[in-house]
């Protein structure tokens, strides 16, 4: 599996996000609250979320099922208006999807255009970005190759297995070379081996392009392996339970990193946090860690 070796040839990046000093937070989420008011039930999905993400950071989000990770990602991407609170990207409030952002949706199957082949699905956003034809062809080929779908490039989504569909969605985001990458359980449907390869793909992309990544996952090993930071969310109504810095070396490797004792420690700590979250533990105001 190639890892997009052609880093140096990537096109000049969109400038909208580069006009700030590199240390300022790129993304600022303040007091975010979202209530879904349906006809017969109102659900407070997010109660009060506040955190920041610096430029070029790789942050993982974990939390119990249904706690509001998808909702948070949709607010950050400007697809959903929060009930109160604000999302600021690069100093500007986010009201619609910002330029240079790519999202891998949890509902990967529905996010692919059924009338386009795998190749066309990956290519379309590049066309939109006005990437010249030759460059486009290279990016699409590489992305499909990186996710192992070279042979299925002419298949329509409904001719692909679940995992293959998900990989098309990943290839689309990867080929787009975004500045901000939001991924919502992107590897849920692929096998362990492929998963490892895709994890390395994301890290390679992140290191090569300096992308800021928000990565939602249920796999705690994955969160620890990938992230620089892991934010743990409480159960619904959701607040931030903890923000764990991952102090592993930057050069990571599926075998060695995962066998570090530090890895096991972090893993255990976060597992315990999620368990707490699942069981309804909520931080008291001014309390930092669960007992």
């Amino acid at each position: 599996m190639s890892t997009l070796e052609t880093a140096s040839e990537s096109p000049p990046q969109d400038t909208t996000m580069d006009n700030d000093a590199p240390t300022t937070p790129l993304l600022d989420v303040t007091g975010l609250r979202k209530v879904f008011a349906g006809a017969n039930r109102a659900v407070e999905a997010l109660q009060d979320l506040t955190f920041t993400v610096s430029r070029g950071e790789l942050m993982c989000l974990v939390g119990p099922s249904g706690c509001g990770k998808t909702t948070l990602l949709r607010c950050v991407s400007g697809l959903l208006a929060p009930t109160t609170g604000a999302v600021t990207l690069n100093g500007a409030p986010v009201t619609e999807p910002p330029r240079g952002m790519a999202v891998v949706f949890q509902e990967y199957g529905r996010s692919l255009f059924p009338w386009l082949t795998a190749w066309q699905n990956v290519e379309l956003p590049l066309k939109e970005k006005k990437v010249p034809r030759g460059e486009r062809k290279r990016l699409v080929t590489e992305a499909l190759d990186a996710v192992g779908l070279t042979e299925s490039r002419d298949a329509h989504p409904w001719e692909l297995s679940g995992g293959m569909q998900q990989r098309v969605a990943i290839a689309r985001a990867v080929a787009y070379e975004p500045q901000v990458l939001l991924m919502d359980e992107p590897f849920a449907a692929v096998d362990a081996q492929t998963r490892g390869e895709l994890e390395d793909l994301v890290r390679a992309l992140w290191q090569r392009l300096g992308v800021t990544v928000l990565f939602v996952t249920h796999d705690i090993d994955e969160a620890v392996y990938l992230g620089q930071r892991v934010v743990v969310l409480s159960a619904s109504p959701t607040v931030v339970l903890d923000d764990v810095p991952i102090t592993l070396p930057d050069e990571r490797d599926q075998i060695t990193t995962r066998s570090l004792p530090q890895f096991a420690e972090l893993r255990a700590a976060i597992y315990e946090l999620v368990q707490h979250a699942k069981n309804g533990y909520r931080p008291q105001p001014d309390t930092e860690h669960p007992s």
Partner: protein
Amino acid sequence: MTAIAWGRKLAIAAGLPAVLVGIWWLATAGSTSVYWPPLSTVLETFAPTWLEGRLTSDVLPSLLRLAAGYALALALGTALGTVIGSWPTVRALTEPALEFFRAIPPPVLVPIFILFAGIGDGMKILVIMVGSVWPILLNTVEGVRSIDEVLRDTARCYRFRRRTRLVQLVLRGASPRIVTGARQALSIAIILMVISEMFAATNGLGFSIVQFQRSFAIPQMWSGIILLGLIGVALSLIFRACEARVLAWYQGQRAAQR
């Protein structure tokens, strides 16, 4: 596809019509009723009535008007439907007014069309268009409204330009329903082709049928109705060929064994 498969397909398609024609034939065989001439008589009059000159003098002009009216309806219905389906406000604003016009019988509207478009082909094309635009319009609106949200979000995230969004998301997403409407509009257009030729016409298929009817040439009238049906079948075959191209992905998806 093998010859046998083709044969099977043909047999399935032609089976029921053959039975129905048989029943018709038998039921009217000894008929003395002026209005139900024996099918044999109708078929005998078919060739002399239509194949000797009327094909170019009546059928062709009708078909040309049909094509023009239908094409306009298709363009207008899809365009308007896309706009109305995309913005709820536009829909709320225009829907009652459109429903108002939709409920008015075309024959009653003809005098107004004559006022604006005269009595030539323009008026007839207008009648065909106005009558057949509705199924396309309604279906386009509903199709645009029910596009999958995740797909919409995807298009927004990747910041598709208006044009791309229109073509790749809205039109293609709604295309199964647009095609449904277009299919329905086709037969309505044929009906309106006949109705439009009841006004200020001097030639045409519908005109001929009405003339036969008025001069009580019943077998000829029946042969005209049969011709209309045959035209309907032929056009629907053409339509299906187009549909198979436009909606290949959709039909594949729905038939997909997963």
